[in-house]
């Protein structure tokens, strides 16, 4: 599965678990508008660490905090390389 597809699956699965209504995951969708709350995001990041072996947020490298879904995917793509 591609990184993008893995991320999309996690967003969808966590939204179901947490009973959140997820907005369609377009690249320009702002994360704040996607429907997930902080706890849901925290779970997504933890699951992605299991699935992809990286947590870009906790690396020593400086990162740009993602604002849109596209930023979020690019952040993981950059680290998984």
């Amino acid at each position, binding site marked *: 599965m591609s990184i993008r597809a893995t991320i999309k699956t996690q967003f969808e699965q966590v939204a179901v678990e947490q009973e959140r209504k997820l907005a369609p995951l377009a690249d320009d969708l702002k994360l704040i508008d996607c429907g997930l709350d902080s706890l849901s995001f*925290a779970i997504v990041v933890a699951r992605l*660490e299991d699935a992809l072996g990286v947590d870009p947020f906790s690396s020593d490298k*400086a990162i740009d905090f993602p604002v849109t879904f596209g930023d979020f995917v690019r952040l993981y793509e950059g680290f998984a390389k």
Partner: protein
Amino acid sequence: MPSKPRSLWDSITAAGTPAGRLHGAGATVALADLASSTSLGGRVEALRGRSVLLIAKDSLRAALAMLELDGVAARMVLCPADLDAAHLPPVARNAAADACVGDAGGATAELEGIRVRVDVDPELTAAPGPRVRSHETEWVLLTSGTTGVPKLVSHDLATLTDALTDTRPGAEPVVWGTFYDIRRYGGLQIFLRAVHLGSLVPADPGEPVPAFLERARAAGVTHISGTPSHWRKVLMSGAVSTIAPRYVRLSGEIADQAVLDALRAAYPQAIVAHAFASTEAGVAFEVRDGLAGFPASFIDAPGGRVRLTVTADTLHVRSGGNAHGYLGDDAGSFQRGSDGAVDTGDRLEERAGRYYFLGRQGGVINVGGLKVYPEEIEAVINSHPWVRMSLVRSRHNPITGAIVIAEVVLADETPEAQRPAPEVLARDLIHSCRQSLAAYKVPASIRIVPRLEVSAAGKLVRPNA
């Protein structure tokens, strides 16, 4: 040391009429107007000498009530907006409360012992008479415990303002914003600074980040405070540049280098500082060098307001900001060392001349400010028929500071052929946790492991959480 004035109102008016304002989500109140007006509908005398529960949910109302009740109430119990309704009766009992102050039109709690109920309203009315100070009000704050009833921590104006060394407004106006609830210790510190030095713009419970930042901008925010989790939300809100503060403060959780660096990049004009404080220990220190952790030279430093020591890898704090103790059922459990310092329960590690926080002693996991006790979750997992034992621990998380994960050892009794696949089992376990636990307590990840380490004493070996 200068002697502290008797009441909060005396203190903020000591240098003259205050110029600041309280910016609520629905209304703004000029501090100067409180000299001759009241938010308590002329009922302040009904509260005199009483033990008052402050249950207003609205931050502006809570701020107004605190300003009016200090010097009037014998005791003022600050109930945070998110206080579990089931915990209110034991809090009231432990505080021997006989009055409460709430939002106008808010739900009236039916509580035993409450004889007087007064609403606080930002629509001020003329005060019935001059302010009369009759009591050294005891301020009671609640800890953020979750498994049980919060503990009641006793302070007074002197302990709460101990870290406020300069209470006179400077030449430049200061507008303090806070993501914290001003009824909790971290937010209360900001409230007290703000009313002495300028204005306050507090977030309201549940207020979306962009909406609060827009209010903060409109109020001209210069200083702003929140937990690292609050700040990560800001960084990911798309609204980070709404404000351009001169000073950004993080406290309440461990500030890691990533969030400090990101805030420095977002607010290049600002001092980005992280501070350590706890409800019991008070404000211990502030770090302004932009680095995670704090210089080892802070420990055992002679002189100064605060004396910091490390005992058994745990931070101890002795200062005039220490709480007096717990009230009611927990009165005996206040943790003080032999030197009188408060044991913070926060574990430290020294690396290259700097101390770094490792987490809480006793393994309490802090998920976005909510405490989680691993044993409670393990009990739920262990009740599953396929499970022999489990270990719940903390994993660092950039959004909530920490998140709960679990490792599970399966019972041997289930024949291999009848065991479901690990991912099916993990999903089933998460499902059963969700049935009986709050969402933040449900493990984000469950791993099936062959064994868990058990110590000679027969206890599960817990990694330093």
